[in-house]
C-alpha cells in the first residue's frame, strides 16, 4: 500500500485570526466540504473527536463519508468503521454520488471495516461488552489507525457500540480513551450518533456530548410543507465557529450549505 503523502505540519502555528482571534491557531483538518469549513473557520482542529448527531435519514452517513472521501483525495488515509450497514452495500449507495471515487478504495486511501466482523474475529460475543472487552476494542481501533496511518476516522455509529456498552461510566471511559488514542495518532474522528430530536440531548447515554470535542447537529424542519435539512455546529473545541443554522442539501457533487434565512424574525422562524 502507498503511504499517504501528508506534509508534516506544526501542531501549533502563530495565529492571525484578526482582532478577536486566538493567540495560537491549532492545525486544521479541513473537512473538504466547503460550507462546513467556512462554518469552522477552516476545518476541525486536528485530532478532535466530533459527534455527528441526528435522527434517521438526516444525512449523517453521507456527511461522514464525504469527509473521508475529501480527506483521501488530499492524501490523508481515511477509515470508515461501519457497524449498522454492511460496507459493500454502503459503497453501492455511495456510488450514486459523483463525489465518490472508487479508485480511492482500490488504492487503499479509503478503507472500510465492518465492526461486526471485527467483533467476531476478536471473539467479542457477549451482548454486553465487559471492561476487558472494551479494552480490546479500543486497542484494536488504535492499532488499525496506527498501522494504516489513518488521519481520518468515522465510526457509524457510536450509538450501536453504545448499545453494547450499557453503563454510562463505561461509555464515558470508552470515549475518553478512544479520544486520547486517536488524538495521539493525529487522527480526526467523526462519531455518528443516532438520536431522535429532544432538545439538548444528542446521544444514547447523554454523556457522549460532554466528552467529545465537537457536536454537529443535523435535523429536518418544515417550511410551507417542504422538508428542509438543517445543520448546526453547537460545539467545537479549539476554534471559533458559527453557531447559526444552515440549510443543507445532499447533491451529487457533495454537501452544499446555505444560511437558514430568518428574515428578521429571529429564532424559530
Amino acid at each position, binding site marked *: 500500500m502507498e503511504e499517504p503523502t501528508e506534509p508534516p505540519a506544526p501542531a501549533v502555528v502563530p495565529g492571525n485570526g484578526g482582532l478577536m482571534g486566538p493567540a495560537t491557531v491549532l492545525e486544521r483538518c479541513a473537512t473538504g466540504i466547503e460550507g462546513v469549513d467556512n462554518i469552522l473557520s477552516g476545518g476541525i482542529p486536528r485530532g478532535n473527536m466530533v459527534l455527528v448527531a441526528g435522527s434517521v435519514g438526516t444525512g449523517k452517513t453521507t456527511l461522514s463519508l464525504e469527509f473521508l472521501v475529501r480527506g483521501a483525495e488530499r492524501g490523508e488515509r481515511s477509515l470508515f468503521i461501519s457497524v449498522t450497514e454492511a460496507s459493500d452495500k454502503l459503497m453501492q449507495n455511495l456510488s450514486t454520488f459523483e463525489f465518490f471515487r472508487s479508485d480511492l478504495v482500490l488504492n487503499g486511501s479509503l478503507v472500510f471495516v465492518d465492526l461486526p466482523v471485527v467483533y467476531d474475529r476478536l471473539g467479542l460475543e457477549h451482548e454486553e461488552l465487559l471492561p476487558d472487552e472494551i479494552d480490546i476494542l479500543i486497542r484494536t481501533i488504535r492499532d488499525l489507525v496506527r498501522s494504516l496511518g489513518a488521519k481520518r476516522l468515522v465510526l457509524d455509529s457510536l450509538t450501536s457500540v453504545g448499545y453494547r456498552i450499557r453503563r454510562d461510566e463505561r461509555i464515558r471511559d470508552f470515549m475518553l480513551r478512544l479520544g486520547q488514542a486517536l488524538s495521539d495518532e493525529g487522527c480526526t474522528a467523526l462519531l455518528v450518533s443516532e438520536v431522535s430530536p429532544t432538545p439538548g440531548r444528542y446521544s444514547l447515554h447523554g454523556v457522549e456530548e460532554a466528552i467529545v470535542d465537537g457536536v454537529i447537529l443535523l435535523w429536518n424542519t418544515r417550511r*410551507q410543507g*417542504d422538508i*428542509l435539512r438543517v445543520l448546526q455546529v453547537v460545539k467545537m473545541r479549539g476554534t471559533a465557529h458559527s453557531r447559526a443554522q444552515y*440549510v443543507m442539501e445532499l447533491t451529487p457533487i457533495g454537501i452544499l450549505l446555505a444560511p*437558514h*434565512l430568518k*428574515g428578521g424574525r429571529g429564532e424559530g422562524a
Partner: protein
Amino acid sequence: MPVDIAERLRALPPGSAVALKLDPREYADHYFAVLNATLRDVGSETEVHTIYMTVTNPAAFVWSLAQALDVPSDRISFVDAISHIMMNYADPLPNATYIDSPRALEEIMLRIEYLIKKFPHPRTIVVVDSVNALAIHNPPELLSEFFHILLNSLKSRQVITLVLETNEEEATPVEQMLNLVVDETIDIARGGR
C-alpha cells in the same frame, strides 16, 4: 433601442453585481433587450456560462425566446422557481433545474451554487429574474437577507450577477437595500447609460 448594454456587461470585472432597471411602460422591449444582451451577445461567448434564475416566467418561455436568438444551449442553465406553482411543469427542460416554490430561497441559493460548481467556467454570469417577482412571494426582510447573502457569496466566487428590476413609482425597501449592495445600475430606458 438601447445599443450598448452588452458593451457594459462585457466591461464588468469579475465579481460585479449589477441592477438592470426595466421601465414598466416599455417592459416587453426592455425585457427583450436584456435577453439579447445577456443571453445572445454576452452569453454565447465561448468562455461564458450563464445561470438564469427565473421567477417571472417559466424557464421554457425564456428558453423559447433564447432559441429565437440562436443562443447555444450548452452554456446556459436555468433555475426555475415558478413552473411548479404555475402547474407548468409537464415538459421539463433538460438544462433546467426546478424548485418547488419561489419561497424556497435557500434552495435557490443552493441550486445556483450547485450549477457554479458543477459547470466550472472562466466566466459565470448569474441572472436573477426578477426582484419584483420574488417580492410577490416573499416578505421584504427575508428578500433583503436573501439578496445580501446571495450577492456577497457570488461576489466572493468572482461571479457576475445581473439582477432584473422593474422600476416602481417609489423605491421598495428591497430596492433600497439592493441599491446598497450592487456595484452599478444600468438603466435600460436610457440605453444602458
